[in-house]
């Protein structure tokens, strides 16, 4: 079978789910004739027509709210944010209306909000954001952020079938840079389960999205240069978070680093550190260390962006400290 990119995997998931279930429809800016800013929805208009592929006005709160209303009535809307940075415009709608709908009103709200996220692409402060931490704090939402083409496809299918609202973050750096043979058949990856991206025994790197690949690079180097055996846990789902998998890797290696591309303060790594503390404190032989972006808006110029974002060498440096602790 031909190898499939991360981007094409997402397109396939949309296509297959729209074929499978006619209540699935998609809406967002420029997703119809144009096929979306990154061409994720390319060809869907031709196949499914204007009533299931809806170009919206520039109004993120408006069309997220509309998706919620349609979802109440039994539809399965998938919303595209042109860049995930614009999800902030729908923050109120997502956190106050969508997330609370089932709890306060017993009204299911099965929508998916997806879009290109993340940096390493010279996008500057408003086309590079990682918004997961802003929503991690919102009970009622689910959050996934796949690192591989296979997970991108399988998790998006799971998200569309999920009876609750799911934020589906896609890393745009990975869109066309990674590919793999996808499993055949109806490939669905359950939300809420982490994935061991690499087995190891000396220390654990807990991460997700693009930095999974940085961690893999670092692990190779550490193996070669230091003889260190590094385990990498790809969280995939951030909400709910797979505590069991986290505890398992901590118990195995006793040394943990949490790596993410997002800024540090208030980021996901803090939550992971707290959970490890509560559930596996006795198994820690060293402090949990965070490798993250520095606490600034992501600057545009390559030397600046490179400096702010976590790099493979940073992971190597910190891993060595951790191993030597």
């Amino acid at each position, binding site marked *: 079978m031909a190898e499939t990119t991360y981007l094409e995997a997402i397109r396939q998931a949309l296509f297959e789910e729209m074929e499978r279930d006619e209540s699935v429809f998609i809406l967002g800016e420029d997703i119809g004739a144009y096929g979306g800013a990154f061409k994720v929805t390319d060809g869907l208009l031709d196949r499914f027509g204007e009533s299931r592929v809806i170009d919206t006005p520039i109004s993120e*709160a408006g069309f997220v709210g*509309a998706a919620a209303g349609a979802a109440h009535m039994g539809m399965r809307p998938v919303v595209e944010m042109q860049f995930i940075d614009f999800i902030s415009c729908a923050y109120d709608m997502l956190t106050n209306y969508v997330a609370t709908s089932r709890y306060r009103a017993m009204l299911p709200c099965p929508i998916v909000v997806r879009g290109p996220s993340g940096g390493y692409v010279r996008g500057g402060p408003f086309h590079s954001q990682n918004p997961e931490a802003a929503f991690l704090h919102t009970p009622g939402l689910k959050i996934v952020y796949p690192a591989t083409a296979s997970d991108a496809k399988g998790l998006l299918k799971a998200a569309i079938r999920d009876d609750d609202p799911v934020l589906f973050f896609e890393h745009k750096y990975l869109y066309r840079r990674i590919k793999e043979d996808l499993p055949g058949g109806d490939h669905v990856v359950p939300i809420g389960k982490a994935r061991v991206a690499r087995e190891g025994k000396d220390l654990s790197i807990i991460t997700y999205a693009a930095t999974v690949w940085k961690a893999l690079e670092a692990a190779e180097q550490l193996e070669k240069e230091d003889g260190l055996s590094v385990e990498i846990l790809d969280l995939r789902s951030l909400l709910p978070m797979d505590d069991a998998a986290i505890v398992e890797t901590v118990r195995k290696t006793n040394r943990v680093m949490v790596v993410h591309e997002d800024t540090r303060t208030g980021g996901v790594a803090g939550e992971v550190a707290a959970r490890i503390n509560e559930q596996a404190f006795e198994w820690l032989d060293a402090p949990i260390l965070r490798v993250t972006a520095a606490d600034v808006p992501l600057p545009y110029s390559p030397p600046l962006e490179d400096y702010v974002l976590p790099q493979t060498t940073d992971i190597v440096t910190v891993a060595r400290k951790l191993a030597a602790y």
Partner: protein
Amino acid sequence: MARRAGPGAKGRGPGAVAGTRAAGDRSTPGVARGPRPSARLSRAQQLDLYYWMRLTRSLEERLVNLYRQTKVIGGLFRSLGQEADAVGSAFALERRDVLSPLIRNLGSMLVKGAKPVEIIRQYMAKGDSPTRGRELNIHYGDLDRGFIGQISHLGDMVPVMTGVTLSFKLRGEARVGLVYVGDGATSTGSFHEGLNFAAVQRCPLVVVVENNGYAYSTPLARQTAVTELKDKALAYGIPGVRADGNDVLAVFDVTKEAVDRARRGEGVTLIELMTYRRKGHAEHDNQSYVPAGEIERWEREDDPLDRYLRVLTAELEFDDAMIAAIDARVKDEIDAATDAAEASPMPEPTDALVGIYAEPALIEPLWYRAGVRSAVAAHERAAGWGTFHG
């Protein structure tokens, strides 16, 4: 059938608006001409309108009593003087249609099938209230009966109802949605984004702007520089019409025409209903910001129940006994509802953890919460209990 506007006055005074009026030649209202829809109401329906308005008012009065007895938890919101706007508009919908009420649309909800006992339970935060004690006052919905509960964030229900009606359109269902917005809430970005999208998609949606003169303490002139809110329609390429919101038949007429238009696939209509909020934003608000005499004038000259009673008796020739029978029925129903609600239990504390996600439940109880029942029992009642200013 003859119908009168409220007694004449100028400016913000009562009866400034006589019947319905189109938005001027720049917008094509698309409102069907011919006999007014209310002319086709049966005599039973004519009485129903009175029943719903009376039920609304009396139920709120009962809630005031319960509030004074500190049995209502939190704020109490009134629609005194606005009953015609809520009842007349909701009455224009069919059973399968969906509306989204605001805090002053108790009447709309009752018309749509909400029960007084549910309302009282909500206000008393009971465990068998429609939201099981999770949400307050009339914030609840029931899709089977065709109403969706609002959240507090003003304007947000407009996009949501755009989506509800978009689904009707996508599935080819001949159903209509109606969403209420206060004069103040027209300033929100959500109102704008939702209405614009609905207009582009020609969703079967009716937007009722209840112009009651104030947003909390803020008068219309500090909310927007337009003088007629129906003109907001011009920014969306949809018809905007204005009607006397205290004339229940006029409200019914203008809404019915918009509903029919939506059902015919002709898209969104914005209706401005002129009314007046005779009570404060909530029960605690002393309305010190209201010019002297304004409230009294509206009460005296433009009460929607008084006006409709005059229509019923003087024009439609219902006799006093029929009216009295309704009043008695309303009282009985509210008494029974009060008794039932008072007897209802408070929620079980642990129910708080149920249902944030679909099954299986994903929220684990807090590990240290073994002794929580006693913690709850022992919890001191806050000094502000029952006086929360929402």
